[in-house]
């Protein structure tokens, strides 16, 4: 297991380096200058661009970039928060994005599991049809559409919730303002968990050991919760972690709609402002989250099912 973990970690670092290189090249090759001022005299413009080695060939720029990163210097923001180290800019925005995404995930799990059980137990009946309809709706309609609808109806028309996220952390108004964005983000994951669990449970319920459980006198509900759920929840664990990455990406638009000062808006702004160091850092952050997610999933496979452990001895 240790060898397997080390191999996966090495693969992660290699992938991250490739991503970093591609991000650097793509961003530096994009048209646009960090100095958009059209009135700069040519000599001054040359001097200012030389400061960031923008006058050097791409390979030389890349070498400077590599050297700086090796020293732990990722540069400072040049447009979004001028002269502030890029990771400091990110750190100031990550907590709210993380909170939003984790809460969405935590809320979506119990609701999705409950809905999945109900749909499986009442297969092909009204309850199942209603849940399946909601699942199709939540999976096929993007989260930002729900966000807009929720904001317009519940916040603007009825006034039950704040229209935008509260900037004062803590207290009832703050948490109240989080409800709509979290709901908008959670609908998709709820649908995915429900659909997955329903499928797993229906298959399990029809197996022989469930028939045995019923003949022993258990009710359908008891047999499902005590026996079928155990088998179905293990594979579910493997979709939960990747869902986090999925929610994180989805929150880009949700943050914009509810004016949440998270990482999502930062990426769009830094791209538009040609803030190259910050854009690279954000891309690395997203890549790192995705790669870590994949790593955790890979390792959890081994923990959940010893048969899939790579590099393990035959006796294990």
């Amino acid at each position, binding site marked *: 297991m240790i060898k397997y973990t080390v191999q996966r970690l090495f693969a992660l670092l290699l992938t991250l380096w490739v991503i970093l290189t591609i991000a650097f090249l793509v961003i530096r090759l994009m048209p646009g200058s960090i100095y958009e*001022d059209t009135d700069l005299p*040519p000599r001054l413009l040359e001097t200012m661009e030389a400061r960031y080695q923008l006058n050097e060939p791409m390979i030389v720029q890349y070498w400077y970039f590599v050297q700086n990163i090796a020293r732990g210097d990722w540069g400072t923001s040049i447009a979004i928060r001028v002269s502030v180290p890029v990771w400091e800019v990110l750190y100031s925005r990550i907590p709210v994005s993380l909170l939003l995404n984790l809460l969405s995930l935590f809320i979506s799990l119990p609701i999705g599991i409950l809905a999945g059980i109900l749909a499986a137990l009442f297969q092909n009946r009204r309850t199942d049809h209603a849940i399946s309809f909601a699942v199709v709706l939540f999976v096929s309609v993007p989260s930002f559409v729900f966000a807009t609808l929720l*904001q317009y109806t519940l916040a603007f028309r009825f006034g039950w919730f704040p229209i935008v996220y509260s900037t004062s952390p803590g207290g009832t108004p703050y948490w109240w303002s989080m409800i709509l964005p979290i709901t908008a983000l959670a609908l998709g994951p709820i649908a995915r968990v429900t659909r997955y669990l329903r499928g797993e449970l229906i298959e399990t319920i029809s197996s022989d050991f469930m028939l045995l459980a019923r003949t022993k006198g258990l009710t359908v509900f008891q047999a499902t919760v005590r026996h079928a759920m155990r088998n179905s929840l293990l594979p579910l664990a493997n979709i939960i972690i990747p869902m986090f990455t999925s929610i994180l990406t989805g929150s880009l638009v949700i943050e914009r709609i509810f004016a949440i000062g998270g990482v999502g*808006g930062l990426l769009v702004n830094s*791209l538009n402002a040609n803030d190259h160091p910050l854009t690279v850092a954000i891309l690395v952050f997203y890549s790192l989250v995705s790669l870590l997610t994949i790593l955790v999933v890979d390792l959890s496979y081994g923990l959940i099912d010893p048969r899939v452990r790579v590099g393990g001895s035959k006796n294990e």
Partner: protein
Amino acid sequence: MLLYIRKSARILALSVLFGTLFLGHAWGGGGQEAAPAQASVGDAPSETGSGMLRLTVGRPLETLNPHQQAATDTADFLNLITGKLYRFAPGPGGVGFEILSELAAAPPVPVDDEGTVWRITVRDDALWANGEPITAEDFLYSWQMVMDPVLLNHRANAFHGSQVQVVNALEYVVGDVSWDDVGIDLIDDSTFEFTLILPVTEFMLMNFFSNLSVSLVYPPLYEAGMNADRSTTNYGTDVDRMVSSGPFMVDSWRQGSEYTAIKNPNYVFADRIWLAGVNNRVIAESGTVMQLFERGEVDFVELSDADFQRFREDPRIIEVPARSVQRIVINLLSTDKPILQDVRFRQALFFATDRATSASVSSTIPANYIIPTTHVMNVDDGTLYRNTPEARAILTPNLGYDPDLARELFDAAMADAGLDTLSLQLAYHEGVEARRAVSEYLQQHWNQVFGGRLQISLQAVPSSQLAARLREYPNNNNAFDLGWTGTGHDDFNPVSALAHYYSGTARRKGPYFSDEYDSLYETVLAMPIDDLQGRLELIAEAERVMLEDASFVPVTQGLGFGLASDRVEFMSDGWSIALRYGWKWARIVD
């Protein structure tokens, strides 16, 4: 035709509106210092002010350092909290404007007859928000730092503008001369002497020193924030890393979401500031801002086209003309499409452009000119450049729309090029509804005018990348065929609108080369500043040269609409060139 008359009437109305603002302005005695005016409405403001103005902005605050700001939203906020030598303020009774000697003791004093050497004395009673006195040394430090050749601030060209150019300022930034050679000298404890390359008027200098780029930074914190090699400072990267000196001071800054300024009781003209503070909430989604406004949670909203239709009869509507003309740049260096080098083809596009309809589909005003209607030619009587006979004389009739002439020119150019049909790509700003609407209209309209022989394909491009593409010509002759552009300038100096096309400017708005134009530009910059008529004639001539060359097809001048809540009472007449919305002078009437 009716549409044309309506649009023309709108231009006329706007011109009259701006003219009125200038005719009504008060100078504080023809250039003498304006005494702090008494409040024109109700009681005097309290020490802490009353009522919080709640605004929204599209982008987060980027810095609190005036040397590094670039975005408009950031500049607007820094204008609230940063002290300057001079500042525009509403005129007496809210009519027009006046220029306050904010941190200067008096207006600039000319030393020579040409208008190239001036003296300005700093006030001795001005304070930082922390209570310390503001000194001439603070200004000197701020100016030296903005031009520092190692720091290379975003605003390092502050003293090398189009008209106000301090001797050796540019040479100092690029490291050719020492600070002692720069034309800024402190001749006593509180008086500066400026030596300029080009002659300027008193107004030009006061206008220049009302700019953010040449405003104050707090020296102790600026120095404390320097890194080891003095190549950067963390001044203004957080609330506790700067000190305010303007009408307001920073109260809070929540990264990415909100920032607030409160009234600065130490401000020289604190008795003219009514507001307790200004809160800016960062909200990028225009629909969200509209909902907040309708729920009374913010005090101002910029209206989208759709929202404008809903509110067009609302008396609270504020009309805001864009300070630039939206024009299509033609790539006259294209080797893929050499016909673009043919002036007849470019003129064909100019005359085939129905500007009245283009303006109609985009809620803008038609423009067959390069210098916008907002530019003032004579600041003494408020004469707008576009209202002068010289500027009118160069305009083509019917807003420059002549489809018959366009077809004639097009046919001749196509015949010489041996082409039956031609396909061109028009790049427009992604996310700008007005630009998309006009592009789509011109796509079908030009096709119609030229009998189906000109096919236009459209491409939406992010703004910064579109600008870069238009400037790519030194390295790539075929970076674009046609592309939209438009830039604001110094409204009090029409010459500034010509600077973007001068060959001595680094990042021009597209490939344009004309020795005749360059010569006219250089001449108008160097001529006596009081020769208004001579300057006017040269500016008009330069604009004519550019229009005839048709490297740019001017189409529209933007028109924005804002809606302010009833709780806001302006101290000026809505939006104006000098004061914009004049938020800092407004008051809340809850």
